[in-house]
């Protein structure tokens, strides 16, 4: 069973990397790119039998390790 974890900076937190990427894209002529927020993506391969268990483990490790709750939030998707 696999689970995907997406970790992103909270909206209130300044993202200097995303900002720089947005500026680079704009200077390449992509004027329609208004903002970029950079995040992290994790693919977990889990030895569990149900999607519910996968979600349970994924959200626990996301909360404890993969994301820093001070600056980041996360979202989980089953694969």
């Amino acid at each position, binding site marked *: 069973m696999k689970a995907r974890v997406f970790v992103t900076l909270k909206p209130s937190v300044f993202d200097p990397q995303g900002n720089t990427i947005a500026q680079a894209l704009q200077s390449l002529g992509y004027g329609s790119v208004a903002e970029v927020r950079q995040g992290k993506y994790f693919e977990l391969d889990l030895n569990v039998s149900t999607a519910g268990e996968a979600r349970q483990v994924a959200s626990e490790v996301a909360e404890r*390790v993969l994301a*820093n709750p001070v600056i980041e939030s996360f979202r989980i998707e089953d694969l």
Partner: protein
Amino acid sequence: MKFAIVVFPGSNCDHDTYHAVKHVLGEEAQFLWHKETSLAGADVVILPGGFSHGDYLRTGAIARFSPVMAAVTRFAAAGGPVLGICNGFQILLECGLLPGAMLRNRDLKFHCEWVGLRVERTDTPFTGLAATGQVLRLPIAHGEGNYYAPPETIAGLEEQGRVIFRYVSAAGEATDLANPNGSLENIAGICSEARNVVGLMPHPERACETAVGSSDGLVMFESVVRALADRGEFQGSERLVRHA
């Protein structure tokens, strides 16, 4: 007095810290591998700078799960003085001994330079011999030292006098120009609620001898020796006896 210097895989200021404590300060220093589960009778614990676990995931994010950190947490809870320098500060933030988090420097550059650091409070074990408002000249070397905490946390830190150091100009002003990384309120170092855990991004251990450009960092190490001596937990070091 015994200083334990924790060594994580990727620590690279452990030897600088050892040198400052042992050869400049004249106290006992001991390296402590991160797999240790006890602090071997240390009086002071220092988490040194570096790139523990390659800064993978986030700075300090993996190191906080090292076995030694459980012992450090117990030591801190019992009032033991703990100093986190640079990566050590980042580890203290990740493990929750200090509040907040580090973001990439606002200009995305790794800053390796001298900064002015104003001592905001002297009521911590690591600043007792400094003067309030004193400007120390210390080096920084980091890519992720942009201190962030939610507004209510920052307000709480200010209210409780837990901002210990701020980046300042040569004139001692906390200007935006003097802020090397974008830290909120020019914050360079903070302490715990009980004030015994202190973290800062600049490197006092690299500025303990005039031969390397500044000896302003030494006051932090001398302060903790005095603080413990005053608490009666230590008989007094040779160095302080010499100074007396």
